[in-house]
């Protein structure tokens, strides 16, 4: 692979990695902190893309960002209420919302499964105009995405160290202790999921605008891809302060995209992305478990062998 091709690969990986890292940061809050595996992520990502694209297509590219985030908050709120107030298992709550969002998303895109943003103003075209003539001229996608990531990381670092943030972290860690600190774990779960899904929505919004179209399947498999990135990030920078761990999430998203981009260059067909992310998630979660089980497994294997020897005599 020649250097210029590698640079192009790195460029794409950087842009996609930054945009997707917003979803990874959302899961960092819901999955790592709140201990809830939010399976509505796919639908929420698409919702952000759809809302963002519609608002941008209507001529308000700047407004599209808060609109997409607000849509994410609403989706997160529904997921949270289903699991805290209506007795629905948290995984099932996510699946239910995800399914429902499919219809909602098509309705948002006025009955179509695709919104085209060609020749429309987006936050990226605005940045392109703004950066014209500066050294960052060709990097407008990365600049916008990086700005969003930096703001999100800064927000999370501040937020997770406030009293509310501590309470959210404790909810995922030991809900009994949250109750005994006279804080309602229902409240912390609702707030946590709302904030997390705001970032998922933002991620979808930026993704759609960067590729100049939103389509109904833009978010499919996103939760697995983001989890894969999250687990890579946790392996690299899983300990330390919230800031370090959040940076690890961004790094994880970038590395995941980089590996994937290189694999594409090595003639891996594009449709393999989701299988690769599934395998990464399955391995990342099962390997530590198997490592822990290994002494028992080994003992049983040897035990059987020894028994065979004994029995043979």
């Amino acid at each position: 692979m020649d250097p210029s091709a590698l640079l192009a690969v790195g460029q794409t990986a950087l842009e996609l990695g930054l945009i997707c890292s917003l979803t990874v940061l959302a899961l960092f809050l819901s999955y790592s902190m709140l201990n809830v595996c939010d399976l509505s992520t796919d639908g929420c990502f698409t919702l952000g893309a759809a809302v963002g694209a519609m608002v941008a297509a209507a001529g308000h590219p700047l407004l599209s960002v808060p609109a997409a985030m607000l849509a994410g908050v609403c989706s997160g709120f529904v997921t949270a209420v289903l699991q805290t107030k209506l007795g629905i298992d948290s995984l099932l709550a996510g699946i239910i919302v995800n399914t429902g969002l499919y219809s909602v998303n098509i309705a948002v895109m006025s009955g179509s499964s695709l919104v085209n943003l060609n020749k429309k103003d987006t936050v990226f075209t605005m940045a392109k105009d703004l950066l014209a003539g500066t050294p960052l001229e060709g990097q407008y996608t990365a600049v916008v995405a990086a700005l969003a990531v930096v703001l999100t990381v800064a927000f999370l670092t501040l937020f997770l160290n406030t009293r509310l943030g501590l309470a959210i972290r404790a909810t995922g860690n030991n809900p009994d202790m949250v109750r005994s600190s006279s804080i309602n774990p229902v409240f912390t779960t609702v707030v946590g999921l709302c904030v997390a899904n705001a970032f998922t929505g933002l991620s979808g919004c930026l993704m759609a605008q960067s590729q100049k179209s939103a389509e109904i399947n833009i978010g499919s498999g996103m939760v697995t891809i983001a989890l894969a990135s999250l687990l890579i990030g946790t392996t690299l920078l899983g300990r330390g302060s919230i800031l370090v761990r959040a940076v690890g999430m961004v790094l994880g998203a970038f590395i995941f995209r980089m590996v994937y981009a290189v694999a594409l260059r090595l003639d891996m067909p594009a449709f393999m992305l989701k299988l690769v992310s599934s395998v990464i998630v399955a391995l990342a979660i099962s390997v530590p478990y198997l490592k822990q089980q290994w002494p028992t497994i080994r003992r049983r294997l040897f035990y059987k062998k020894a028994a065979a020897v004994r029995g043979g005599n």
Partner: protein
Amino acid sequence: MLNITHISKTFNPGTVNEKKAITDLSLHLAPGDFVTIIGSNGAGKSTLFNAVAGSFLTDSGSIVLDGQDVTFMPEFRRAKSIGRLFQDPMRGSAPGMTIEENLALAAGSGGWFSHMGQKDRKRFWDRLALLDMGLEDRMKQPVGLLSGGQRQALTLLMATMNPPKLLLLDEHTAALDPGTAEKVLKITREVVAEHRITTMMVTHNMNQALELGNRTLMMDGGNIVLDISGKEREDLTVRDLLEKFKANAGKALDNDRILLS
């Protein structure tokens, strides 16, 4: 301080597993009372604590804490005035968070968006130093790294950070080794005395039951069968206590973990 009138609690009512855990129990505690509670297995000691703390609502009766009716108040609201320690030292703190983060959450000062400041850290440092366990120099370490005894001491500190109106201790030293248990008990005594906290403590150590506090309750079959305080309690020995229990409950004290000495 605490007024419990005619509360009852039945688990799985109407099924073969029906269990009348508390039957028509009434209890009045004066401010500053330190009550020790002993009883057989399944006597309803923990159920009583759960009912007072609000882990579940009672089937009948009322619970009034310091003039406020808390009968239907959810657990997390009652926690403002009730501190509680369990036998399991892991239950009271979040292992994935640092010592100072746990304390900050328990201290609960400031609004939702307040950050821990140097002043808070200094306060936590001072309180931790009182434990004499070296925890004050490990404030940035996750609680998961602490031993059971250290965690229980920390939980005690968290529960009394803002002195509660009522402190519930459910065999909180039972899972600790004797040395650590002694230490945690000493801290308990000091904290309770310092703030004159009304306290209820379940124990299976008969000596402890007579030695600590100013009043001893014995429970059996979901009710209080013996309530001793004052002069009568001062002169009581463990042997007397067992005999009294037998006389009142109509059977010998049957607790598989009871410590007589």
